[in-house]
Every structure is written in C-alpha cells, then in structure tokens.
C-alpha cells in the first residue's frame, strides 16, 4: 500500500524542466498529495501564470506515479505561489547551480528603487549589478558580478 509520504518522496525525482537542479518539491509548487480509494490526487500551483513548464510537470507526475497508482493532477491558484514556498534545500541547490536564490522583497511600487543586493553565486561578492528585471525565464532576473564579471541569473523574489 502506497502512502502519501511515499508519493512525496517519489515526487522529489521530478525536476523543474527550466531549472533541472530543483525538484518540484524544493520549488514548493506541490501543494497537496491525497490518496483516496486507490487513486492519488496531486495538487500543484504555477510559479507564474504563463509558466510553460506546468504542462510538462503535469505529464511527468502522471508518468512517474501511474505504474504505482492511478494518478490525477489538479491545478490550484490559491494561495498564490511566492518564493517563500521554496525550501531551504532548494535555495542551496540553486546557489550551487549558479543561480542566486531569492532575497527579501523589492518594493515594486517605488520607481528606480535600488535593486536588491544579490550576492554573486560564483565568487560571493555583493558587488553586483542588475542588468534586467526580466531574465531567461519568467522567474528569473538578469545580473552581472562586477568583481568576477560573470553574468548570472537571479531567481527573483515574488511576493
């Protein structure tokens, strides 16, 4: 008999296709797992409304679990995902992978506000510069380190 705990462990194997180092559990997009009458319902939530990875993630979950148990994936929008849902483990993995994990909140209403200081994931210098609020995917901003000069992605804070 599979338990909900087993399912959660299984789900650790599924990674976000855009940030393969993060599992969907680390990312905090798996909301609930419930088993009823030999059927498993996994509820997930998108990071951004237009996140193109959601369909792939949904298929991956079904592919992984259906040999063990009948699986349905449901989508919920509320409460909306924020970067606070990301696990500490996830944040560490991101940093090792070369993506700076989300820092505290930027006030989006203040124009030309000083962008958040994001330490360089390569050399740890906090002498970095935001190049663009919008990066290679919806969840990232684009930064550059002014010491080692490496450009890097910042997983931007969403609150």
């Amino acid at each position, binding site marked *: 008999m599979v338990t909900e705990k087993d399912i959660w462990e299984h789900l650790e194997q599924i990674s976000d296709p855009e940030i393969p180092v993060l599992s969907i559990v680390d990312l905090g997009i798996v909301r609930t797992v419930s088993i009823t009458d030999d059927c498993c319902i996994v509820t997930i939530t998108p990071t951004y*409304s*237009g996140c193109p990875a959601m369909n792939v993630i949904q298929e991956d979950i079904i592919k992984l679990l259906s040999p063990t148990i009948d699986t349905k994936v449901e989508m*919920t929008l*509320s409460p*909306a995902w924020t970067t606070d849902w990301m696990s500490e483990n996830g944040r560490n993995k991101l940093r090792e992978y070369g993506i700076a994990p989300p820092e505290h909140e930027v006030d989006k209403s203040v124009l030309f506000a000083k962008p958040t200081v994001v330490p360089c994931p390569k050399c740890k210098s906090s002498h970095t510069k935001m190049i663009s*609020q*919008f990066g290679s995917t919806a969840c990232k901003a*684009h930064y550059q380190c002014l010491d080692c000069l490496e450009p890097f992605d910042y997983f931007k804070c969403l609150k």
Partner: protein
Amino acid sequence: MTTQEAFYNYIVRLGDDSLILGQRISEWCGHGPILEEDIALTNIALDLIGQTTNLFELAVQIEGKGKDVDQLAFLRLEKEYTNLLLVEQPNVDFGYTIVRQFFFDVFRKLTFEALCQSSDEKLAAIAEKSLKEIKYHLKHSSEWVIRLGDGTEESHTRVQAAVNTLWKFTNELFYQDEVDQKVIELGLGVDTSLFKEAWQLHVEKVFTEATLTIPANTWQHEGGRKGTHTEHLGYLLSEMQYMQRAYQNMEW
C-alpha cells in the same frame, strides 16, 4: 441577460485584453531594441497569455458547454473579440509600445487589486496571482516612460507623439454597460469608475517626472467591448489564428 451570461462576457473581456496585448507584444520577439528588452517584452507577453489561459478556463466553466479554451482564443470572428481598442494598436516603435503598456498596466493593476475581493473565489484567485506579475510590468513600463520622456530630444518627441496618438483610447478603459452593471451588483466584478481618478493621478504623476503632457480635448473612441474594432485587429487575428484554422484542433 442572465447573470451567467454577464459573468461569462465579463471574464472574456478581461481575457481578451491580455490575449490581444500579449499577442501584440510578442511581435517584438527577436526585434527588441536591445537584448534585455527583447527578453523583457516576451516575458510580459508570456505572463499576459498565461493570465488569459486562466481567465478563459474560468469562462468555459461558467459557460458550461464543454468548450476548449483554444476555441475561445483562436476560433472566434473579429466582431466576437471584446478587447479594449488600446491593446490592439500596432507597436509602431519601442516608445509607442511602452506608452500603450503603461496605460494598460496602471489600469490592469487597479482592476485586479479590486478583483481580489470578487465574490467569485476562482476569479479572486486569478486576480491575486496575476497581480504579482502586473506589479513587475507596471514598474518596467513606468520606468521606461520616464527614461524616454525625460531622455533625449528624439526619445521625448517620440513618446510624446505616442501619448498624443494613444490618449484617445484611454477613456474606453472605463467603459461600462449592462454586463458590468450585472457583475458589479453581485460583487463578482468591479466598478471601474471608482478608480478612474486614481488612474489619471497615477498617469499624471509619472508624466510629470517624464516631462510629458496629456493632450487637451481629444476625441475619445470606444467600441471594443461591443466588438467594433480598429482596422489593426483583423491583421493581428489573421496571424494569430492561422495555425488553428489551417490545422484544426492542433496541439503544441
């Protein structure tokens, strides 16, 4: 008009705004003035299309005829689209694109802030989710309006020209008819007249910093909510609908 019909139309209008603007901005893909802006604009387009998907999924549920969201997005005729005229206007240049975006972002933010209190839980959830994205969009467009307006003579002239041309589509943002009355009564939708002043003040504040001026006494156009569009929408739709019409029911 029943409540169900009014709520359906209301949601489709909200979805059409982001669908058409998202499609319009995506024309910048590969043509942005600088790489970072190419990426920014396509990210914003993606957010808007994502918001549309959520709204249309809600719309087809309300309608209850088992329609697919792609049918709604891609297989209607021009007169069946109910987006604001502002969002279908052509890109022209980067300044024009930014001004159009700015007008829309201020409006969308105020609308969705209010929609977080909708008596429909699903719509409130979509609003809450979308709002997090819209705040980034608004910061982006506001900062560019200021940079370009208070920039060089060339950039100032161009964005001021964009403001002069686009201003005539801004009154329509606050258009309301029997659809709105019905959803407002039931607390499902929001009364945009309540924040018309807030919209104007926000725009003026940014324009002051940008050294831009609002043109006086421009004729105001409307018709989008009833399916009467400017000539630009037809061209946009023919490109957007091509794949679905040529290969019916295709999926990516």
